[in-house]
């Protein structure tokens, strides 16, 4: 297949996957709304649409793999024995990504002969334009598409999780299938509030959300991203406020929306800077006109910033890698401006991904139905911020990356600490989400680009799993969310409990070293911690960026196990809840099982490759056996396994796994060698190799931290060796501080809300005491003038008019006597008139 055909095929498949939910939305909102309001047909429609979307996405992934010959998944020898290859080696997946260009060009000539045997000259990224909306000067606003492995993985992941959640939601939302849904949370004077069910509306919103999310992922330019960014925001708003009658829900929806707007403000600033200085929004070079996209402009063909000697300018480059010329001079963008643009775009990511300081909306967003929390507020939409940061990674200078790293670092710690004391099962998960998103941001900030996105995908699986489990618990316990009222539920709902346990282990990053088995979270978190360690090694000033996630890994394990123990283990604390609780129906548990499997195994390679790089059970392609055979089969000692980041072993997971490599394949910026910033902050971004070197250390430390956290949790909540109440009593300040969520809401209240109130009070006072007085005075003056005017009107004007009318009338009344209606009298009068006229003429005319 030639690249053109492949691109068209991919485009068509993904467009189908993208537009199917829209179709579903239209059908649900305009047709099923009226015809099948109280049936499950809208749910079936939504499930069908998103399921078909998943099939399309998966087919697209296969097509892409076939077209590229699965080059991204080619054997792992370079990583496994990286010593003799060194940093100069070019891996096919790390080849400088000329996003749109065919890689047979000059860009590959310097890659050496080693590459030739494995690196097939394949195109990894495809892009194009659906439709050009408008053109302003050099700027084109168009509907573009950009497809690389990241897009494909995201599509597959989103559609798959969405399908599972849709199916789960059929069971979860079945209460709504009535004309009289009683909302226990809303109290009116007549008791509980009752309204018609909104089953169809829920699925319509979900479909719309899926459409928006997929559009965001498929988007080929940053402006289009922005549009879908806002669309998912809207969907989020609608879904959080699904129980609109609840005050807390509507407030939460508003809060989420407003918080997002704050971030979008920065996004818009970034957009304006890019428009002004780069004149394009497109990611990739235009395949038709040959204009350079943003990535090529900033990064060139070699993935490096072309910074001027004084470090204040970044030269822009055209599609062929040369500097852009304008009026005979090199076009450039200020380095600080580039930082500002990056920070601006990242501000959008902060808002969407609930990063510090805009993190407070996400816990409140748990007011929405649990499937929404699972889909929107854990797996996909909030991950969109991370996705954008990853997608836009080439535009970020090291200084921006530092900001990202610190933001992520702060976020992950704050959220984890709050999660420790949270008692609402969904809130724990919400804070956990924020924390995990912080991990991802941190990873991207410290140069672990692949690790961040890897964690994004794995986290999506296990977090959605856990949310669904919590949803199952909530549904089973009749909408009880407080963990202190639960306990011992594993006996009542075993499937939920053990699938939840899988998720907990995964997020905690636990592994069994002896068996060389780790769940997906273990691999991804290892990779992040390793990146952070490499970063702090190179930049010792920022070593906090390593210790915080390390410690937080322990905290994560602690609060997650705390959650599990509190909910499922031990004795029931509230007998009433326990008695009424029951296992969820099949339609809800089946997605849990599926997700649990994937949450555990998605990072593993056995699906496609075994540990030696040989084709696995499901491998669609026969990898070159010779290449695979070169790799010496190493002994499977646990230490070795661990030190290699779990790349080897029966499951062949982690960075050697297909998932990570698929993601890493789409990297635009090469991480083959450390890169030192030429800007104001002299920061060095670690190379892939350097990260790899510190991987064992980091892995061991993270594993220890995780075990420590989970053991502590077991001691405190499993066997109750230490009573949590004692600790709470010993540190009441800290506990309260944490319960108050670090008092961010108080801070914001003091910083923004109060001043606004004060100012508005001042304005009110001014209005009342100055403007109102002026208005009232003038009104009184006008009133008195008007009274005078009225008197004048009535007396003079009306009098005059009436006088004229009366005179006319009286004259007419007197003259009507003359009109007798008698013909003969008229004749007589005419004759008399003639005589009189004649007499007058005769007497008046001089003779």
């Amino acid at each position, binding site marked *: 297949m030639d690249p053109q055909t492949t691109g068209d095929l991919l485009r068509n498949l993904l467009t189908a996957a993208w537009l199917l939910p829209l179709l579903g939305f239209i059908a649900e909102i305009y047709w099923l709304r009226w015809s099948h309001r109280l049936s499950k047909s809208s749910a079936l429609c939504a499930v069908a649409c998103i399921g078909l979307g998943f099939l399309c996405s998966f087919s697209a992934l296969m097509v892409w793999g076939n077209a590229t010959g699965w080059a991204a998944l080619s054997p792992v020898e370079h990583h496994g024995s990286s010593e003799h290859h060194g940093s100069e080696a070019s891996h096919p997946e790390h080849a400088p990504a000329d996003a749109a260009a065919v890689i047979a060009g000059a860009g590959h000539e310097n890659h050496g002969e080693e590459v030739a045997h494995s690196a097939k000259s394949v195109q990894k990224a495809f892009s194009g334009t659906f439709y050009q909306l408008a053109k302003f000067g050099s700027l084109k606003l168009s509907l573009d598409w950009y497809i690389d492995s990241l897009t494909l993985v995201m599509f597959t992941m989103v559609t798959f999780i969405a399908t599972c959640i849709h199916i789960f939601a059929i069971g979860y939302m079945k209460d709504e299938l009535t004309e009289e849904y009683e909302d226990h949370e809303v109290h009116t004077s007549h008791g509980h509030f009752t309204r018609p069910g909104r089953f169809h509306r829920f699925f319509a919103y979900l479909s719309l959300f899926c459409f928006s999310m997929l559009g965001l992922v498929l988007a080929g330019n940053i402006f289009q991203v922005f549009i879908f960014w806002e669309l998912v925001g809207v969907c989020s708003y609608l879904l959080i406020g699904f129980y609109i009658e609840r005050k807390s829900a509507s407030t939460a929806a508003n809060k989420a929306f407003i918080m997002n707007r704050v971030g979008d403000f920065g996004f818009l600033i970034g957009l304006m800077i890019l428009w002004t200085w780069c004149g394009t929004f497109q990611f990739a070079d235009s395949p038709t006109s040959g204009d350079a996209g943003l990535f090529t402009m900033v990064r060139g063909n070699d993935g490096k910033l072309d910074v001027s000697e004084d470090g204040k300018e970044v030269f822009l480059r055209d599609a062929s890698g040369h500097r852009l010329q304008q009026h005979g001079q090199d076009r450039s963008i200020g380095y600080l401006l580039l930082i500002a643009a990056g920070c601006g775009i990242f501000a959008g990511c902060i808002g969407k991904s609930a990063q510090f300081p805009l993190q407070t909306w996400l816990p409140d967003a748990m007011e929405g139905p649990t499937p929404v929390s699972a889909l929107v507020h854990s797996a996909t939409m909030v991950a969109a911020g991370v996705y954008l940061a990853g997608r836009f990674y080439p535009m970020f200078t090291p200084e921006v990356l530092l900001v990202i790293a610190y933001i992520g670092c702060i976020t992950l710690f704050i959220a984890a600490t709050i999660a420790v004391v949270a008692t609402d099962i969904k809130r724990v998960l919400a804070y956990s989400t924020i924390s995990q998103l912080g991990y991802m941001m941190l990873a991207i900030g410290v140069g672990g680009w692949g690790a961040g996105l890897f964690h994004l995908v794995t986290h999506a699986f296990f977090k959605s799993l856990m949310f669904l489990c919590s949803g199952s618990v909530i549904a089973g316990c009749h909408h009880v969310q407080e963990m202190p009222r639960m306990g011992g539920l594993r006996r009542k709902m075993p499937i939920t409990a053990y699938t939840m346990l899988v998720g907990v282990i995964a997020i905690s990053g636990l592994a069994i070293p002896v068996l060389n088995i780790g769940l997906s979270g273990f691999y991804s978190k290892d990779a992040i911690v390793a990146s952070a360690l490499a970063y702090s090694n190179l930049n010792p000033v920022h070593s906090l960026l390593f210790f915080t996630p390390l410690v937080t890994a322990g905290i994560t394990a602690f609060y997650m196990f705390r959650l599990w123990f509190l909910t499922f283990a031990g004795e029931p604390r509230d007998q009433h809840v326990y008695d009424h609780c029951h296992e969820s129906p099949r339609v809800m548990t089946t997605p849990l099982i599926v997700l649990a499997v994937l949450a555990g195994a998605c990072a593993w390679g056995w699906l496609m490759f075994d540990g030696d790089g040989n084709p696995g059970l499901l491998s669609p392609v026969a990898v070159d056996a010779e290449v695979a055979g070169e790799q010496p089969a190493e002994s499977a000692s646990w230490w070795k396994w661990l030190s290699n980041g779990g790349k080897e072993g029966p499951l062949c997971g982690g960075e050697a796994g297909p998932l990570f490599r698929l993601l890493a394949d789409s990297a635009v910026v090469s991480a083959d060698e450390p890169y030192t910033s030429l800007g104001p902050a002299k920061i060095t971004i670690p190379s892939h190799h350097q990260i790899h070197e510190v991987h064992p250390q980091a892995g061991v430390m993270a594993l220890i931290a995780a075990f420590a956290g989970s053991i502590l949790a077991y001691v405190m909540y499993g066997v109750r060796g230490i009573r949590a109440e004692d600790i709470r009593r010993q540190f009441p300040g800290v506990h309260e501080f944490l319960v108050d969520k670090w008092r961010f809401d108080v801070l914001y209240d003091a910083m923004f809300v109060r001043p606004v109130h004060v100012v508005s009070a001042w304005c009110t006072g001014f209005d009342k005491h100055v403007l109102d007085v002026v208005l009232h005075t003038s009104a009184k003056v006008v009133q008195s003038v008007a009274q005078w005017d009225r008197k004048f009107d009535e007396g003079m004007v009306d009098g005059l008019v009436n006088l004229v009318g009366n005179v006319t009338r009286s004259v007419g009344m007197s003259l009507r006597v003359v009109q007798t209606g008698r013909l003969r009298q008229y004749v007589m009068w005419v*004759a*008399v008139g003639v005589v009189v006229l004649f007499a007058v003429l005769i007497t008046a005319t001089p003779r």
Partner: protein
Amino acid sequence: MIEQLLFWVFAILTCGAAVAVVATQNVVRMAFWLIVSLGSVSALFFLLHADFLGAAQLLIYVGGTVVLLVFGVMLTASGSSVRIKTSPAEAFVGAGVGLLLLSVLLFSVTSVEWDDLESRLPTRNLSPAAIDSQREASSDADVAAAGSSVAGPAREAQAALAARTQAGRTVRQLGLGFLGLRPDQDLNRPEGEGLSSGYLLPFEIVSIHLLVVLVGAAYLARAKRRVVAGASADL
């Protein structure tokens, strides 16, 4: 002398009959006197050398209009309503106003020097009778001269006779006038001036007018059909 005699006869008839029309209270007698008056007016037209007009007056006015009036009288006559008396006071007032109006008119008529009219008006044409008599006389004279049977004074006398006998022959002139030609004016017109327009357009308008009146009067006077149940069966 003869003309004077006839004039006085017919003038007195005209005026007397008109006064009788005013004075009579019986409508039928009024109609009779009106016939007399209008017929006399027709005679006056003949005296004024307007033969065709006189004939038209007889045909249309006397023979048509008055017949119509008599019909009106008969159709609307029902018993006592034929004699609708005018009160004496009204008659008196009417007579007074009439006398005043008459005095005004007579004053106007007599105070104008009609003999000066010839000098005051542009003398570009002559009266039709004069033209006729001139033309006839001249041709007469030619014939007479050719025959040389009559001497000079006799010729003049003959011309005067011809002028008298030919007077009143206005049919052809009127007809031409109605067709848009004016021989009495165009013949004496200086070179370069356009021909006069005649009365073609008024003639056409009058024709159409008559048609309209024909239809309209028939409509106005049509018998009102009284709708009777079962009337259609009779038809």
